[in-house]
């Protein structure tokens, strides 16, 4: 949709293209150069998810992937089971996602998958599978969520956090 609009209203200048490409490639370079930041993020992410699920901490992995128009964080968090439902989660449930035109991200593992969107500096947001959509908070989170129908007991939960891309308005 975005590309159609771009073609309709005229392509962005090559300098605008260059600026956007540089923004993404430098973000990707900076992330590769900050393993301590990635470690801290991984620790915090596991901690948040652990409020809702039992996770296999030893096999958790977080990487960043430079996709066509954005940088995505890919977290592979093996889930061993759900926490007791009687225990309320510590954090409030997140907002429903606005519609996004982006193509579906490749997902490898079978089982429940949750896609959460967040800017790199903010906390990743995870959802409990049984929660229905809640009323949006004051600041809408940019997030997309896809679930497979059969949640096996021991599953690999894959969280895609999609840091917001600023779009053409920032160029």
């Amino acid at each position, binding site marked *: 949709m975005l590309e159609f609009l771009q073609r309709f209203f005229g392509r962005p200048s*090559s*300098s605008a*293209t*260059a600026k956007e*490409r540089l923004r*993404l*490639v430098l973000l*990707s*370079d900076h992330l*590769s*150069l900050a393993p301590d930041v990635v470690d801290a993020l991984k620790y915090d992410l596991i901690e948040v998810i652990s409020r809702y699920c039992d996770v296999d901490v030893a096999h958790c*992995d977080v*990487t960043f*992937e*430079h*996709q*066509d128009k954005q940088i995505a964080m*890919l977290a*592979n968090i093996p889930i061993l089971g759900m926490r007791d439902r009687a225990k309320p989660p510590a954090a409030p449930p997140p907002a429903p996602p606005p519609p996004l035109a982006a193509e579906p991200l*490749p*997902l*490898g*593992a079978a089982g429940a998958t949750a896609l959460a969107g967040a800017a790199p500096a903010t906390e990743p947001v995870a959802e409990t599978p049984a929660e229905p959509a809640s009323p949006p908070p004051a600041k809408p989170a940019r997030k997309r969520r896809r679930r497979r129908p059969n949640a096996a007991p021991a599953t690999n939960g*894959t969280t895609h956090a999609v840091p917001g891309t600023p779009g053409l308005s920032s160029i």
Partner: protein
Amino acid sequence: MINDVIADESPVAAPVARKRGRAIVVTSGKGGVGKTTTTANLGAALAAGGAAVVLVDADVGLRNLDIVLGLEARVRHHVLDVLEQKVTLDEALVADKRVPKLRLLAAAQTREKDDVDTEGFRGLISSLRDRFDYVLIDCPAGIEKGFTNAIAGADEAIVVCTPEVSAVRDADRVVGLLGENRSIKLIVNRLRPALVKRGKMLSVDDVNGILHLPLLGVIADAPDVIVSTNKGEPVALDPTSPVGETYRAIAQRITGALTTAPEIPRERSFLDKLFGSRR
């Protein structure tokens, strides 16, 4: 770790019996003369012409071949990952959607040139020659370990030189270091015929009077190279670009399809345009 294979990146199959490919290092000594742009464009032109081509970025720590090609978003692994056997070669090769027979093997961005074992790199180039018709290696600036690694395994070299005293001096140094056992050819880049005519820039003859190398081509300075790098679209794929045309001709000289001497861009006078004369 989820590292999903993007389905259309089918690797170039290793054929059963195949003529061994050529390994050519693109070097200069001086930085910023157009090695990476040349590697990208020659690779694209050769592959568009039907050859199986792999481009190897040897500039560990300061990689740019990926971004010049517009493939920076598709790089997942790099040369060191392959040399350290963390991934297979096929997993590391990046396909180019515009040119199906072109592959990129990126450099590591967060490592150093000293991390590359020269013999390992030589072995990698050798195995790439078994699978591709052309292995083009983008050499970093300088004459230290990065240079030594890049030339390992390449028995041909293209020296890129701009018509400026510093570049010629550095190219001369590099020619000396490349030694006697390599075929070395010259590309003169960023010529400005108007300045040459006014005596404000060295001519191709001035340059090659010092370097004494067979000339592959002469590329005129043109702003569309900057635009093409902005967009990540090599000019060699643009049928309307004169610089692209020059790169395509150089590719044909490399394959042997073109045997005429390279044309030296000149400031075209009115009479030239009228009669189409060539020097």
